[in-house]
């Protein structure tokens, strides 16, 4: 896929400086742009700050310096409650460990976001949309079940329903397929990609599953786009997929 200059950037990070792991040094990220409709994978060794970056984009954490723009909203300038509100309605989070609520059934887990923040209104339209979503993901017959009774793959599908229900513009997946078997990994990716295509939406997925990388539009190796202070690197380039990277190398 080629980058199109006229498609809106969903995520734009500029001169970002952030700290992770309570270490003595912090991370600098000069520039990162993700466009609408892109399916982006982020890779890197453990502990390199991938999750932290996701949290910054989602407004879960604030940077030391720099600008975070998500759909024209300057996250770094928002108050905590404004960020929460933005996050719950515009960003869908999918976790490696699913993070479902054990004392709620499947249906209530899917609706959970609507009970967490009054800015999201839970009404009959939302509920029927939830049922549709569940149907699309093949779990509509399990709506009244306890989540404990579900398989790993089914649980992740519930989590995805939860994430997609507010019709977010940006999906952040943190090792979403990490705890699934190979078949389920592909299925989950199918679901996420279909959503991105149909909504349309944007996907930024942190992953360790290298066999999935080729399905993505872009692959970002965080190591290459950031520098570790105090030394600041002048230019950092976003890295395209290995195929694109090869082409680029050929070009240069």
């Amino acid at each position, binding site marked *: 896929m080629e980058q199109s200059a006229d498609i809106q950037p969903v995520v734009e990070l500029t001169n970002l400086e952030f700290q992770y792991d309570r270490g003595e040094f912090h991370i600098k990220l000069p520039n990162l742009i993700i466009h609408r409709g892109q399916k982006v994978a982020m890779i890197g060794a453990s502990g390199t700050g991938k999750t932290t970056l996701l949290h910054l984009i989602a407004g879960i954490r604030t940077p030391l310096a720099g600008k975070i723009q998500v759909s024209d909203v300057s996250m770094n300038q928002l108050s905590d409650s404004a960020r*929460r509100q933005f996050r719950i309605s515009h960003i869908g989070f999918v976790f490696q460990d699913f*993070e479902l609520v054990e004392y709620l059934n499947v249906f209530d887990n899917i609706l959970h976001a609507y009970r967490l923040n009054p800015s999201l*209104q839970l009404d009959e339209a939302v509920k029927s949309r939830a049922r549709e979503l569940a149907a699309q993901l093949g779990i509509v017959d399990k709506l009244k079940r306890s989540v404990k009774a579900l398989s790993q793959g089914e649980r992740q599908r519930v989590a995805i329903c939860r994430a997609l229900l507010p019709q977010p513009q940006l999906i952040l997946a943190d090792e979403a397929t990490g705890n699934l078997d190979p078949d389920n990994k592909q299925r989950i990716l199918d679901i996420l990609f279909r959503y991105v295509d149909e909504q349309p939406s944007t996907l930024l997925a942190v992953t360790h599953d290298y066999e999935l990388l080729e399905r993505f539009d872009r692959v970002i190796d965080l190591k290459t786009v950031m520098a570790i202070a105090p030394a600041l690197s002048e230019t950092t380039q976003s890295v395209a997929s290995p195929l694109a990277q090869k082409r680029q190398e050929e070009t240069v």
Partner: protein
Amino acid sequence: MNGMKASFFLAWKYLSFNKLRTTILIACVTLVGALPLSLNLLLSASERELMARAETTPLVVGAKGSDLDLAINSLYFTTVPPEPITMAEVTQIQTSGLAIAIPLHTQFQARNFPIIGTTLDYLDLRQLTVAAGRNFSILGETVLGADVAATLNLKPGDTLVSSPESVFDFGGVYPLKMNVVGVLEKSYTADDNAVFVDIKTAWVIQGLGHGHQDLAQPEDSDVVLEQNDNVVTANANLTQYNQIDADNLASFHFHGSTDTFPLTAVIAVPQDDKSAAILRGRYEVSEASSQIIQPASVIEELLLEIFKVRNILNLVFVLVSVATVVALILVFNLSLRLRQREMETNFKLGCCRSMIIRLVTAEIATILVVSLGCSLVITAGTGVFKDRITRTMLS
């Protein structure tokens, strides 16, 4: 409001999921709420019960001494009977027309139940009605309190023997085999445990009256020690009857004037307040050999002392409540720590800032409301049944 509804939904789901923990919490709070309320209700009802019996007993005349002992013995028939007074007290009061005088004789027992020698007026005073059989009419007959009949399994037509004062009391009190002619309705008072006889029957037990073979026409001449003009003296062979029936009833009699015969107390029911005052005045002169008391005042004083314990109880309740609240706070605190991951996820998903507070508030509110409901039910139940519970506890 939408937010509150959602918080209550999540709180309810969480509480229902952790049934044991929730039940224990509700039980603790319910107890803390219901116990003081219920206990105070019961204490008030007990006070009223105890006072009711005293209040329906306007005046009591007895030997000088402890007014509390006199009151307790006359009302509840417990404690050692006070020093006896004589029937003359009854006659004097009756002659004066100031009050109805009801004699009480509580010296004897039948199988550990007190025998109350009195008149039918006592049964009228206490509004005791017969459930089976009839009231006593003839010497030697007895009417049993409901619990006596139930415990001893007696009914009209059966007999009951009075207990001798002591094992070695052969020459004094004669055990009398009384004829049970009636059983009273349950009254939930000390009367349920009493064996009621006519005062004259009590005197027969005391040996002051007896029946025997007609000494002027003895069936067995061995019995006669000597006989001169008008006096016949019997020897020890003479059988003194221990049961009164139609055949020997005519032979029963008392020697001497009944005015000298003993009683333990007299209940006086004055015609009006003025008569009551006059009557009380007669006993307040220091030369009077007996005293008059108002059971209501005596018992009220006693209750005031006893129910000071209520203050201690209330203090204990306050302390327990504080401890319970502290424990509840601890429980909630620990629960929140256990749910840290859930809360973090909520944050990551974008929950509002006050989410945790709302959730905890909703949980506490739900527990409080359910506990309140249970407390109210328990207290209401105590309220409805308080009289029955109190009477059962006091009888």
